[in-house]
């Protein structure tokens, strides 16, 4: 019994240490932004807010892209996952496996088809061009579909007796049951979009349309003080979302059997 607790303490110490290592970059980023020329203060923030006007449109772009994509994606994902769950047709399994494959494809495979699609539609260098392809990302479909296996069919059956409108069935019987999964997926998708680098880099030419990720990566153009302040401001929205939705993350994102 004693050996067991010693082992437990040892693992606890190990995990704690590891946790500190993992947390260090976050803490150091924040501390760094308050230190300018070896003095502690908020000059870097002053500089960012009052001298660096490109920051505002870029921050707004990041919010706009991530927010709109997340919202619109939910409207595509939920019916699609529902369809995969209840529709019966030939080739459904093959289609589902195709979605899994697509989910697993790295950006460097999908970005060229996306680029060609946008080019042919004349959507390069527009806001729509960033938003549109991201709405159809298959990740959420797969996660939602996995989660849907555990929801209560009888509520859907009962609602079907009341109405034949698919929209009403989805809204009143399906969405409330998916709440936790929706939060988790929304958090995940938002964070993904917030973090995107390649799409604005490749699809946009106009600086006024670009996101904060692009600004922060331009280390030659901006002073270190401005960059470190922008980096912290950039973390805040996701941190806030995380504190709100954190508990849903584990229950909402279950992915194991993919057939």
């Amino acid at each position: 019994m004693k050996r067991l607790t010693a082992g437990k303490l040892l693992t606890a110490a190990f995990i704690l240490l590891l946790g500190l290592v993992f947390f260090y970059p976050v803490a150091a980023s924040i501390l760094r932004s308050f230190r300018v020329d070896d003095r502690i203060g908020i000059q870097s923030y002053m500089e960012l807010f009052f001298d660096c006007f490109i920051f505002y449109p870029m921050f707004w772009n990041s919010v706009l892209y991530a927010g709109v994509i997340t919202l619109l994606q939910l409207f595509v994902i939920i019916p699609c996952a529902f369809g995969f769950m209840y529709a019966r047709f030939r080739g459904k399994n093959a289609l589902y496996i195709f979605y899994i494959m697509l989910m697993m494809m790295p950006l460097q495979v999908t970005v060229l088809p996306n680029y060609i699609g946008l080019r042919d539609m004349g959507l390069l260098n527009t806001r729509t061009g960033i938003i549109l392809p991201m709405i159809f990302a298959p990740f959420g479909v797969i996660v939602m579909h996995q989660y849907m296996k555990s929801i209560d069919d009888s509520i859907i059956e009962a609602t079907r007796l009341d109405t034949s409108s698919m929209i009403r069935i989805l809204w009143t019987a399906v969405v409330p049951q998916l709440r936790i999964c929706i939060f988790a997926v929304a958090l995940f998708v938002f964070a993904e979009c917030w973090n995107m680098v390649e799409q604005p880099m490749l699809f946009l030419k106009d600086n006024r349309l670009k996101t904060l990720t692009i600004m922060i990566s331009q280390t030659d153009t901006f002073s270190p003080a401005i960059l470190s302040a922008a980096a912290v401001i950039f973390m805040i929205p996701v941190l806030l979302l995380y504190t709100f939705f954190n508990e849903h993350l584990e229950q909402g994102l279950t992915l194991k059997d993919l057939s």
Partner: protein
Amino acid sequence: MVKQKKIKSNKQVSRRHRLTWNGKCILCIGLSMIGTLFFFIIPYIRVLYYSLIDNQFRRNFVGLANFMETLQNKYFLLALKNSLLLIVICVPVLILLALVISLALAYGIKLLKKTRVAFILPMILPTASVVLVWRSVFQGNESVLPIYTLFIWKNIGICIVLLSAAFSSIEREIYEAASLDGTSSLQLHRYITVPLIAPTILFTVLLSIVNSFKVFKESYLYFGGKYPPESSYTLQYYMNNNFLKLDYQALATGAILTSILVFLIVLAGLALQRRFYK
């Protein structure tokens, strides 16, 4: 005349009702399918076409010549080697760490649960935000170490989330029965927990392999958009350089080859998983 119109509209109504439940369910997939069709499938076929012609303007069919050329390209091979090395070295470390951490979080001392946030946050925090700190930690280290660490730092969160979800579905009684026999907790997890969640572990391995192809973002930000040292030149850099040159043939061929590679990896994973369930 009026009557006729009425009959017609009645017909339309009944026709709309004839759309069965199953039909509506299929329709639900439609929206997503249309988007996928226009932004992926149709352009992908064009990408395939680009990989088989000599260039944009002459459009001569050259068969597999582009593929032969790419497979002999020094930079492509270097990128492929580095990408595979990243998988072979980092993925096992990542999965092992994630397993240990999520086990400790689930079954260890209660207080330890507070450290969870440290492992989950990197997954959602923008890499761009912390990259300045990474640079000052590694002080211009030119080896693969910074990229490998960034990869593990960034990807451990999703692995822990998925594994923890799997742990919470295991019933506690199993442990109680086993611990009566006097097995140590290490044995307990080795022989009970891990086999029980094997499908999830397999999936996390698969996801991590696939994510290792996405490490470009971290690497790009870390090197500040400059050319990376040779050891960190991965497939994504190869693609990106060709993107900047707008060399469609090289891009298309690279994309097709990468997609075949990922396709085979996922197929193998799915087949393995099917065996677990039998």
